[in-house]
C-alpha cells in the first residue's frame, strides 16, 4: 500500500511540477542567450542589446525565485486540499494508516522540493558557465584541490568533505523543517471550527517565534564558545555552532511531525 500511495502522490503532483521545470529550462535558455548577447554585443545596437540582455537577466532571476515559490506553494496547497479539504474525505478513508498517509505526503513534498532546488542550482551553474565564456568549469581543471583543502582546514578547522556534508545536512534539514512548519500550522488551524486560515497563520507565526527563541538562546549560549573562536580554535567553534543548529533543526522536525501525526490521527476535523 505504501508503494501505491507514493506512486499516486507523485502522479497527482507531477504535472504542475514538470510544467514549472519546463519554465525553468526556458528561463535558463533565455538567461544564457542574454549573456551571450552581452558578450557578443556589436557596436551598431550595443545600447539596445545591453538593455535587452539586462531585462532578460532580470526576468531570469524573477523566474528562478518564482519557480521555487510556485513549487512550494502549489505542493502545500495540494497537501491542504487532499488532507483537510473535500479530497480529505477520500484520503482519510483509504485503508492505510494515518502514519503512512502523512509520511508519504511529506516525503513527496520533500523530494520534489529537493529536486527543484538541485535544478535551480544547476540552472545558475549553467549561466555562470555561459557568462564566463565557458571558463567557469575549466577553472576547476587547473584548480589546486590540495591548496583549497588546506585553506578550508585552516579557516574552518575541518575537511572540505566534512564541511560539504554539514552544509548538505543543514540544507536538507532546513527544507524538511520548512515543510513541517507549514503542515503543522495547517494541522493546528483545522482544529478550529471557523477562521481556519487565520488560526493556521497564527500557529505558523508561533512556531516561527518558538524556533527563533530557541535559536537565540542557543546563540547566546554560544557566546561562551566564541572565546574558542577568538583564541583560534575554529574547529571547536564550528562544530559547536553547526552541531547545535542541526540539533535544534532535528528537535523541531520531530516536534512538528509529532504535532501533525497526533492531530491527523486523533483530532481530524474535516470541513
Amino acid at each position, binding site marked *: 500500500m505504501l508503494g501505491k500511495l507514493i506512486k*499516486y502522490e507523485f502522479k497527482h503532483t507531477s504535472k504542475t511540477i514538470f510544467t514549472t521545470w519546463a519554465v525553468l529550462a526556458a528561463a535558463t535558455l533565455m538567461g544564457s542567450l542574454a549573456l551571450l548577447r552581452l558578450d557578443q554585443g556589436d557596436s551598431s545596437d550595443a545600447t539596445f542589446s545591453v538593455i535587452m540582455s539586462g531585462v532578460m537577466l532580470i526576468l531570469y532571476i524573477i523566474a528562478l525565485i518564482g519557480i521555487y515559490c510556485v513549487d512550494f506553494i502549489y505542493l502545500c496547497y495540494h497537501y491542504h486540499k487532499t488532507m483537510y479539504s*473535500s479530497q*480529505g*474525505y*477520500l484520503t*482519510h*478513508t483509504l485503508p492505510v494508516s494515518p502514519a503512512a498517509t502523512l509520511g508519504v505526503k511529506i516525503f513527496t513534498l520533500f523530494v520534489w522540493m529537493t529536486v527543484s532546488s538541485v535544478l535551480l542550482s544547476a540552472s545558475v551553474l549553467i549561466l555562470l558557465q555561459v557568462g564566463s565564456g565557458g571558463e567557469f568549469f575549466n577553472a576547476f581543471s587547473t584548480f589546486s584541490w590540495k591548496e583549497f583543502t588546506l585553506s578550508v582546514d585552516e579557516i574552518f578547522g575541518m575537511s572540505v568533505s566534512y564541511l560539504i556534508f554539514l552544509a548538505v545536512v543543514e540544507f536538507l534539514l532546513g527544507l524538511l523543517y520548512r515543510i513541517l512548519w507549514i503542515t503543522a500550522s495547517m494541522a493546528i488551524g483545522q482544529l478550529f*471550527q471557523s477562521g481556519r486560515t487565520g488560526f493556521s497563520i497564527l500557529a505558523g507565526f508561533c512556531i516561527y517565534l518558538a524556533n527563533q527563541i530557541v535559536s537565540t538562546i542557543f546563540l547566546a549560549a554560544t557566546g561562551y564558545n566564541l572565546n574558542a573562536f577568538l583564541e583560534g580554535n575554529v574547529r571547536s567553534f564550528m562544530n559547536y555552532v553547526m552541531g547545535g543548529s542541526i540539533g535544534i533543526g532535528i528537535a523541531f522536525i520531530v516536534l512538528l511531525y509529532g504535532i501533525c501525526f497526533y492531530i491527523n490521527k486523533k483530532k481530524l*476535523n474535516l470541513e
Partner: protein
Amino acid sequence: MSTLVTCKELTKAYGKMTALNRVSLEIESGHIIGLLGPNGSGKTTFIKLLNGLLTPTSGELYIKKLPVGIESKKIISYLPDQTYLNMNNTVKEVMDYFGAFYADFEPERAYKMLESLQIDPKARLKTMSKGTKEKVQLILVMSRRAELYVLDEPIAGVDPATRDYILHTILTNYEPDASVLISTHLISDIENILDQVIFLKEGQVCLQASVDDIRMQHQKSIDALFREVFKC
C-alpha cells in the same frame, strides 16, 4: 445475519457542543437502514465516526468487532455529502485509484454503469454537471463489494430523475448480506426502500425499529412519523 456495527455510549463533543450523546446501537448485516433526523441531529457526525474521520470523545465503536481503523475501512464503502474526488482527473483515473486501494472494487461493474448512463470514462470530472459528478461518485462507491455502504445524503440537491437513478443503483448493486446505511431527511423519497430506521434527535437515538413494525404499531408511514416526532 451478523452484527456489523456496535456502538456503546458513543459520544462526540465539539468543545461545549455535544453532537452525539451516549448513542448505543447495533447494525446487523443484510438491511437497508435509514439514518433519519433533522439538520444538526448528529447524522453526519455518526457517519464520520464510522469512517474514522472523527475520533469519539468517549464510548466504544466497533465494526465487525474491530475498532475503527485500516480493517474497517476495507469493508466500508463511504459516500460523503460532498464531492470528494480530484476534479482534474478523468473518470478512468479515479477508477484506477479506487482499484489500486480497494481490493473489493470491481471496475467491470463500474464501466457497465457508466455505459448505461453514457458517461465517457475519459471525460474529466470538472467538465461534468453536479448531477453527473454525483452519479460517478455513487457508481464508484457501489462498485465495491463492501460489507457496509454508508451514504451521507445521497439524494440531496439532485433532480427527481437523478434521485430515482441513485435509488435504483443502490438497490441493484449491494450484496444481500451487506448493509446500506443511508442518511437523509428526504424520507418520502426513500422510505419504500428502507427496512429499518434510526431516528436521531439532538444527538441521541430516539427510535430504532424495522419499517414494518413502525407501520404496524403506529399505523403511519415513516415520513408521517418523522414529522410527528420532529415537529417544530
